[in-house]
């Protein structure tokens, strides 16, 4: 049974369909990148996965013991958070609230928060103020918080927006590691190159159509060729293009 099963679902707001008739499976351990132009429905699909909106028709169901409120979520940062006075520890702990409905944090929850902070390498920032961190550090804090809410699946909304290239590379490496440790990743991204390099599957949304398959299949599909700025670096394609440069594999 797959972790998430979307069947013939159309999604949108107030009757206006943005993503028509989508059917995909996300399996345990997948690293799915959702790409597409602005307005193609990436955010709408993500909200649907998170249960913030309901599909207009069709179904979104969860398997393998995953419940909808057990998906970790890394949202884009809001203006409100720019001057928010809170310590890193407080922010990370707030991710534990979906676990047990107790009034105050239990010992296990505190332990989990600390171990997740260790996982993303921010344990030394524990007592720092959130608003004084750099962009990359802030994203790590949000990632640790998202990890507190889940054991299985993370949804990341453009996790490298506003990060410098170094911080972005670090972030992608961190996400890749989390994926290797068994967490299913669903990432909305504009960074198509990083998507192709990192993810195992690509979901490309465009008006009235979509592509879902491995990164390799994507590079050789019509939709992928159109969307990629650079050519596919694999031998077949390079040969086909009569170019001598034969970089890495797909």
């Amino acid at each position, binding site marked *: 049974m797959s972790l998430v099963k979307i069947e013939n679902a159309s999604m949108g707001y107030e009757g206006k369909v943005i993503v028509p008739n989508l059917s995909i499976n996300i399996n345990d351990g997948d690293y799915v990148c959702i790409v597409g132009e602005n307005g193609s429905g990436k955010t709408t699909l993500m909200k649907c996965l*998170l*249960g*913030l909106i309901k599909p207009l028709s069709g179904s979104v169901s969860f398997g393998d013991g995953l419940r*909808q*409120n*057990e*998906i*970790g*979520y890394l*949202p884009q940062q*809001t203006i*409100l*958070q720019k*001057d*928010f*006075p*809170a*310590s890193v520890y*407080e*922010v990370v*702990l*707030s*991710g534990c*609230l*979906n676990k047990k409905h107790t*009034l*105050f*944090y239990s010992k296990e929850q505190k332990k989990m928060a600390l171990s997740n902070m260790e996982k993303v390498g921010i344990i030394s920032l524990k*007592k*720092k*103020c959130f608003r*004084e961190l750099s962009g990359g550090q802030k994203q790590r804090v949000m990632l640790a*918080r*998202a990890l507190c*809410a889940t054991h299985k699946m993370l949804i990341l909304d453009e996790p490298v927006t506003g990060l410098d290239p170094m911080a972005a590379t670090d972030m992608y490496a961190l996400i890749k590691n989390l994926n290797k440790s068994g967490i299913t990743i669903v990432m909305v991204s504009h960074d198509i190159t990083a998507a192709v390099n990192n993810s195992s599957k690509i979901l490309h949304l465009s008006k009235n159509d979509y592509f879902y398959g491995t990164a390799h299949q994507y590079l050789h599909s019509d939709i992928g060729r159109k969307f990629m700025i650079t050519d596919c670096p694999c031998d077949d394609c390079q040969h086909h293009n009569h170019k001598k440069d034969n970089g890495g594999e797909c």
Partner: protein
Amino acid sequence: MIQMLTEMFSYNFIIRAFIVGTLVSLCAALLGVTLVLKRYSMIGDGLSHVGFGALAVAASLNLAPLEVAVPVIIIAAFLLLRLSENSKINGDAAIAIISSTALAIGVVCVSVSGVNTDLNSYLFGSILATTTADAIMCAVLAVVVIVIYVIFYNKIFAVTFDETFSKATGLKTGIYNTVIALLTALTIVIGMRIMGTLLISALIIFPALSSMRLCKKFKSVIICSGILSLCCFFAGMCASYSFDTPTGASVVIVNAVVFFTFWLISFIREKRKS
């Protein structure tokens, strides 16, 4: 100094006002942090204007002021919260409309029924206005506000920091927003007789802003805000007694002075760092 204090607290009405004021300051400080961070500061202001309308109507109909004001302000709080959440209607414009309408209704009611003398005390507060029954009711409401706030503290933090995340991970954010609106409404009701309907929102905003200048943890912001608010109220009340100035306004001025001091300290700190 000690002589002045003993003299001050020999008056019953001052003791009543002091008890109510202390509790209101504490409630306002706790909620203020959340309201300021959620960008809901104006809701407090809007509600206090509605409160003025309710008090004026109650006075002209010879009803008990608090019993009219409590339900009216609670209803207004829900309404304003819905309006701010609904992106189709411009939230701050809606608040302006509601508050000025309520103010206008209040002024008309007061002038028609001819109870002019009270107008000033409604707008700017009066230390004499609290009866023993009022004081008891205020104390009960204030304790309710503080207890609910402490019980929901972690959830209120989560909803304040990131509503979308909280909602996505299964927290019923609607309920907690409603709780926040309800608590704000209650705080304004109990505070507006002493502080005045025009000045009560200062009590909500100033301590939160001051402590946010210096504190780095949410918990310390809340605690600092509470302590500041209590100190400012006490200092304002003493100043009002010794210089014979209006209580509400004196408390607001003390709060403003503290805010500018804190702002200056944080400004100098940042300058030194860079």
